[in-house]
């Protein structure tokens, strides 16, 4: 049976990839008859390779240039991420490039901060001088006083690495909507840095868990790549179960829809696990070998140790033995007397813990029929084909064609434990990092946090501005939402300083993070803020002392990874034309800034850090005593990477495709030893340790209650809002926009003209609300009792739970003719901090609201 299965699989795999290839070629002209050259007259036309700038994943582009001016961007056919295509944003960014409402010169504030500013144009010399002076000054006094934050992750080497290291700034977390809780949960439980995505080439059964397939990105990569792989997988028979209060994300791609109640995913995952165990879908070999499931847990909840070594139960000798000692497979179940106390293997503890988590129990909580839960769980178990293997690159690897795409759904109060609960489901099946199973990073790369998060020692105050190693949020994601609250009341969190200088780079925290009100209040305390942005962002308008106009796509930037997890490559952003107005590429800006602030040259300077960050080898290293041109830096990098033509290669080709990625690089199971020998944490002992320490320091329960070794369901805090707040608000992304910045591109703005509230017709009818009516949406903070309200239009849709309303992000910009009248940002309704985030101090986009006719 396994044989036939395997052979079939290889065949289908091959068929799939050829089909895929064909469909890719389909985009190139084939059956068209070209006209006589006479027709093809016209002005001089050239095609310049470059890299998309508007979105997250930096797709490859070809810029069509007519007599020196770019008139269109098309997808780069060779680029693995987008294969000759672009998303709506990528196509429409041409209008952003020429937008006459860009910041044209450096600006210096002439009005008080906290409200929309008035400005005077300045020379680069003056503006840079001003910023550099401030940085120089605080660096001498106390480097902690310098903050740095960047939005979209571009060219980390130049910004996040080199500049942050050289300047000694405290780097704030980048993404407004990033799934920190998920990252931490995966780093802590499995090891790699990421959340969950499927192995599309081999996956046959997918849990799209809050995955906005048709509109948004997903783990690691972004929109074009994932849907392309999904559609190809579906043409090979992939089934999709869409777990989401709202159908629109999956649209026609949902084979089954579980409209789960927001914030209850943890319970649903536990019910899945419960059924899998009950039905015997358990990969014991994996659990025994590669997880801490066999570790003996004492009555106190801590592992039983001898000589500092965790013990397992040897069923033959009937005695405990160190987990790494040779011998027969240790027991996963049972209860044993060990050194006076009674101990159970972690897996037994897990089983007992889930005893009550029946589908019926979860159905109550999640608002999904018990039979659906059971059916999906059993399908999952069956499709996992526990025990089957497949041969890839000559290696025989476990084959578990069941996966999950689970990303932004982690942004809920219980996010950290919820993601752990989902991981547990796939750990039971032995699917994590198996062929076809859920993946976390594009390749197998354990993150330092796997150890770090296990060995945190909670310190006494004073803490740093993001409460690192604090008694409040030991596992911490350094998210601005929390930082902003700390800044508002440092004493409360035992912080003894307030940063004075901040550089905000292509980020717009005041608008895009949850609870902008908090961000504004907090960041107001920072005395000097410089913003690097092509537009006058809300952050710049309200808080900046200096605005430095950055170029959009018309600049050198990179290097950016171009791997779709099966084909690897690297690309650069090549300027298709000179920067418009007086704007400049950020790398130019940083070089000058560092020089003026006095940390460009010499050891430990920006250039030195660049050499490290770009891994420039020997003769390609930048001299530390001379300011290079940006193009020269990339030229050295390219040669250092072994590309003889240097940067010219990318100016001609745009992307360097390195070819297929070996299975050995991808799968944790393909390592020797598998997973580099580390054991996945089914049981989170250290979490219990932190809990005890926090208790001991007398911090309120609200901080430590979710530090449990196994995910424990409890009603989210928001549920304790008054019953009149009877709906739960969720937020989502639309394909038309990326950062709020995209909503000011007229070509995109006309596709989705204004903010809206997705509401179920039944719910609307009960409130006398018709399609297109104006409504008030009022949110309530269950901890502080604070309320917030905004006015939007109701849009009726049968694709959403009756007890849920949805609102897209992206809106709320004020400084562009095309954003006026678009309506408020949904983030205004969300709350941050205690009660809305638990373990990981990040942010959640769930809140209780009431909706009334306006």
């Amino acid at each position, binding site marked *: 049976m396994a044989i036939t299965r395997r052979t079939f699989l290889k065949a289908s795999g091959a068929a799939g990839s050829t089909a895929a290839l064909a469909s890719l070629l389909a985009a190139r002209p084939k*059956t*068209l008859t070209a006209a006589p050259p006479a*027709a093809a007259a016209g002005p001089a036309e050239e095609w310049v390779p470059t890299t998309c700038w508007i979105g997250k994943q930096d797709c490859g582009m070809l810029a069509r240039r007519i007599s020196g001016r770019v008139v269109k961007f098309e997808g780069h056919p060779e680029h693995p991420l987008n294969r000759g295509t672009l998303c709506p944003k990528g196509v429409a960014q041409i209008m952003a490039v020429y937008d006459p409402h860009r910041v044209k010169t450096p600006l210096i504030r002439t009005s008080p901060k906290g409200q929309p500013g008035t400005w005077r144009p300045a020379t680069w010399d003056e503006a840079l001088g001003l910023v550099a002076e401030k940085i120089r000054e605080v660096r001498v006094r106390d480097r902690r006083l310098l903050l740095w934050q960047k939005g979209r992750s571009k060219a980390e080497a130049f910004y996040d690495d080199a500049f942050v290291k050289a300047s000694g700034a405290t780097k704030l977390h980048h993404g407004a909507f990033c799934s920190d809780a998920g990252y931490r949960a995966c780093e802590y439980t499995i090891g790699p840095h990421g959340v969950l995505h499927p192995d599309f080439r081999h996956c046959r059964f997918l849990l799209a868990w809050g995955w906005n397939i048709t509109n948004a990105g997903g783990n690691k990569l972004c929109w074009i790549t994932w849907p*392309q792989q999904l559609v190809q997988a579906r043409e090979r028979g992939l089934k999709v179960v869409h777990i989401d209060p709202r159908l629109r994300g999956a*649209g*026609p791609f949902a084979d089954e829809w579980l409209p789960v109640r927001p914030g209850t995913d943890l319970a649903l995952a536990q019910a899945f696990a419960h059924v899998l165990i009950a039905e015997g879908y358990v990969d014991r070999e994996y659990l025994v070998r590669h997880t801490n499931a066999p570790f003996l847990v004492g009555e106190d909840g801590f592992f039983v140790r001898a000589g500092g070594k965790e013990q397992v139960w040897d069923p033959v000798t009937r005695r405990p033995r160190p987990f790494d000692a040779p011998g027969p497979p240790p027991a996963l179940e049972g209860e044993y007397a060990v050194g006076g106390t009674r101990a159970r293997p972690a897996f037994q503890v897990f089983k007992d813990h889930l005893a009550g988590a029946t589908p019926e129990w979860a159905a109550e909580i999640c608002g999904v029929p018990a039979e659906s839960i059971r059916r999906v769980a059993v399908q999952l178990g069956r499709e996992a084909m526990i025990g089957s293997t497949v041969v890839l690159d000559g290696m025989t690897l476990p084959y578990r064609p069941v996966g999950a795409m689970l990303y932004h759904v982690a942004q809920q109060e219980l996010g950290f434990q919820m993601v752990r609960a989902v991981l547990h489901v796939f750990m039971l099946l032995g699917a994590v990092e198996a062929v076809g199973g859920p993946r976390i990073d594009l390749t197998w790369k354990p993150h330092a946090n796997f150890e770090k998060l296990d060995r945190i020692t909670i310190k006494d105050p004073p803490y740093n501005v993001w409460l690192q190693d604090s008694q409040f949020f030991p596992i911490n994601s350094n998210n601005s939402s929390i930082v902003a609250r700390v800044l508002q009341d440092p004493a409360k969190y035992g912080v003894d300083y307030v940063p004075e200088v901040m550089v905000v780079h292509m980020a717009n925290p005041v608008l895009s993070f949850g609870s902008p009100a908090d961000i504004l209040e907090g960041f107001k305390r920072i005395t000097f803020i410089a913003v690097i942005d092509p537009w006058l962002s809300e952050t710049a308008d309200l808080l900046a002392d200096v605005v430095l106009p950055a170029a959009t796509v018309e600049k050198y930037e990179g290097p950016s990874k171009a791997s779709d997890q099966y084909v690897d490559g690297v690309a650069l952003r090549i300027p298709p034309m000179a920067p418009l*107005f007086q704007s400049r590429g950020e790398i130019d800006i940083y070089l000058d800034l560092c020089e003026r602030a006095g940390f460009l040259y010499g050891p430990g300077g920006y250039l030195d850090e660049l050499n490290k960050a770009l891994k420039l080898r020997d003769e390609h290293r930048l001299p530390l005593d001379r300011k290079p041109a940006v193009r020269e830096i990339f030229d050295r990098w390219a040669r250092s990477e072994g590309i003889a033509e240097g940067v010219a290669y990318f100016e001609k080709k745009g992307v360097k495709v390195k070819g297929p990625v070996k299975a050995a690089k991808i799968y944790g199971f393909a390592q020797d030893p598998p997973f580099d020998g580390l054991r996945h944490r089914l049981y989170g002992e250290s979490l219990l340790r932190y809990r005890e320490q926090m208790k001991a320091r007398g911090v309120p329960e609200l901080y430590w209650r979710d530090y449990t070794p196994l995910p424990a369901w409890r009603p989210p805090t928001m549920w304790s809002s008054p019953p009149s707040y009877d709906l739960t608000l969720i937020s989502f992304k639309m394909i038309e926009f990326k950062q709020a910045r995209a909503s000011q591109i007229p070509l995109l703005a006309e*596709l989705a003209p204004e903010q809206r509230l997705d509401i179920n017709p039944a719910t609307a009818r009960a409130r006398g609300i018709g399609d297109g009516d104006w409504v008030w949406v009022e949110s309530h903070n269950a901890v502080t009792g604070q309320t917030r309200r905004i006015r939007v239009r109701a849009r009726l849709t049968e*694709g959403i739970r009756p007890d849920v309303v949805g609102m897209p992000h992206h809106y709320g910009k004020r400084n562009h003719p095309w954003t006026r009248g678009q309506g408020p940002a949904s983030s205004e309704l969300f709350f941050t901090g205690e009660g809305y985030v638990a373990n990981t101090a990040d942010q959640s986009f769930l809140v209780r609201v009431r909706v009334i006719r306006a």
Partner: protein
Amino acid sequence: MARYGMVIDLDRCTGCRACMEACKVENNTPEATFWMYVFRFEEGQFPNTHQWYLPRPCMHCDNAPCVKVCPVGARFKREDGLVATDTDRCIGCRYCEVACPYGVNYFNWKSPKKAYYLDWNDPDLQPVTNGDSPPYRNPDLDGRYGPEGRRTAGGGHAKGVIEKCTFCVHRVERGLKPACVVNCPLFALHFGDLDDPESEVSQLLRRKPHFRLLEEVGTRPRVYYTGGNPPVAATRQIEPVKGRV
């Protein structure tokens, strides 16, 4: 000679509307004008809801009502199957528009200078755009195409004339596929010679069941859909675009 047509695979369409944007940039169409439009549809009731997407280019009908009614022959059928609009001929009576059951015709209500979203006369922009509006102006659109060399690519978008999807005649005559087809991120759009049994489109039509929109009206469209079904009376449109100018 080749007779072109389009095949749209609804099993692949994610309703992302990238084709609409590719069309707008390639053809420099004015505000609220969508030669290519993507419907987003909803049917049924929670929780048995079905949502799906349907791209709507011009159908380039073989029995095109718009061609029949045009009083001056500005709208005409080409040998290669394209239904073309001679914008130098059109008198702007909009009869083609009321005759078309698909709603693909767009009239130029304003002068182009005023119809391009933003004021491109910005003095700081002039040095770069030397006055072109929009700055991404595509010169190919001004050319003359077809054996009769008529202005059918919609260049200039002059006030007072009707326009619609041209199947990117300026690209097709250069041996390229229409902008929407080339850009589709999911390769859901296919274009080619329907008379050539070996062409990708013909093969696709042999492989999968297909339908055409409003066949009952007898327009004989050259745009085919595979996967899914035509919209029905109960089909509701969700997430419409900004329509008015």
